């Protein structure tokens, strides 16, 4: 199938892109980043934007730079660039590990970090990684720019706090000092995850000082497992504490089932993968010392 006709513009500045979004509001415009989610939806005619605003020519939207304890990633930065970046490997290895699980190389050559987060597929990897890191997203609209914590940004399946006249320009990833792990269960390598888990731990002596855990596949969006984080804080990080954290992570969750996994299967997978993620993050934190 082919997409229905649409008007198209490739502006060169964010201001111009925002103006086009605002002025063509009645055409239901969409922003085109890498297009790896939007164009399949358009081919199926599930998405029929009347106007596409292609960000490929907008200067300054792509790139990775370190600002103290924050890794700043331009929204149009391709996933393949994140995968290869020594900066990402050093400052946000959790993101590097998550990106490797996103589809295949040809998709990662086109797909962008901003596109993935703005698309907000409930099964995608990057929202969980961003959530564990407490990333901040910078959005630019007619009134200027604002910064939105990723926990507020992710509102539901394919639903974000991004307003119709706003463009996501930058992702700010705090540098985590300690161990990380991003693990997932997918039916086939490179498929969307049935369940994915991002875990971060910081050790202090023999104890876990701080932990951050995010899950995908058990709720309408990626979620933080705050109860599990509280179980881990101050614990010695032995098998019992890790198991208790895994139990706490899934307590009270009511995932919906689908063709790929029933609710019970998702909960069982989540418990197992939270445990594995924490264990891996702890062992990496130990090796870093």
């Amino acid at each position, binding site marked *: 199938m082919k997409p*229905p006709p649409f008007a198209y513009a490739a502006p060169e500045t964010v201001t111009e892109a925002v103006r086009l979004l605002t002025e063509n509001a009645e055409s239901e415009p969409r922003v085109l980043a890498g297009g*790896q989610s939007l164009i399949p939806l358009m081919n199926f005619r599930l998405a029929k934007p009347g106007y596409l605003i292609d960000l490929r020519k907008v200067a300054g939207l792509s790139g990775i730079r370190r600002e103290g304890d924050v890794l700043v990633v331009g929204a149009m930065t391709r996933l393949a660039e994140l995968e290869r970046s020594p900066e990402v490997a050093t400052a946000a290895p959790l993101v590097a590990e998550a990106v490797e699980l996103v589809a295949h*190389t040809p998709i990662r050559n086109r797909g962008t970090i901003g596109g993935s987060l703005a698309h907000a597929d409930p099964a995608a990897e990057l929202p969980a990684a961003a959530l564990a890191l407490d990333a901040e997203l910078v959005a630019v609209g007619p009134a200027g720019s604002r910064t939105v914590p990723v926990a507020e940004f992710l509102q539901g399946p394919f639903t974000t706090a991004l307003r119709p006249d706003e463009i996501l320009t930058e992702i700010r990833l705090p540098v985590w000092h300690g161990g990380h792990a991003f693990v997932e269960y997918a039916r086939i390598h490179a498929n969307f995850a049935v369940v994915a888990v991002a875990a971060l731990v910081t050790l202090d002596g023999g104890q876990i000082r701080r932990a951050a855990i995010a899950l995908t596949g058990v709720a309408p969006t990626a979620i933080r497992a705050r109860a599990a984080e509280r179980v881990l804080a101050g614990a010695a990080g032995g098998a019992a504490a890790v198991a208790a954290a895994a139990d706490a992570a899934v307590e009270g969750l009511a995932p919906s089932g689908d063709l790929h996994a029933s609710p019970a299967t998702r909960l069982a997978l989540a418990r197992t993968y939270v445990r594995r993620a924490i264990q891996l993050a702890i062992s990496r934190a130990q090796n870093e010392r």
Partner: protein
Amino acid sequence: MASQTRPISLTVNGRPVTADVEPRKLLVDFLREDLGLVGAHIGCEQGVCGTCTVLLNGASIRSCITFAVQADGAEVSTVEGLAGHGELHPLQDEFSEKQGLQCGYCTPGMLMRAREILAQNPDPTLTQVREAIASNLCRCTGYQFIAEAVLAAAARMREPKEVAP
């Protein structure tokens, strides 16, 4: 809505191309219909199967989920540009030698993906090749002969080039 065309200019297999295209025209359709380069095949039209794989500035992409307008200013390489001077590329030669194809539908995409794999890693292991070509579906071969062909081509491409007298 009136479908206005947009001018684009790009390089395809080393040749400069200018054209007016509808923004909704997919790159694979532009290559096949406007340029007559029918090597890139259309399979799933949703970015899953990989038979439409071409290189955009050296990186493999799905041309069925890329608009032609997005390739404006870029360098596109298709399977038609793989052989040079009447000689098959080592990858093509080894796909033929090792029976890395049966029906041939996936072959152009598989060859272009293999070209990127070897550009990034000239000496991959069998496991690395198998993992890397997982991006492209083949329903005939079971992949084994494709992976062997890629390894054989890699070995040939690593040999020092013979210098013509």
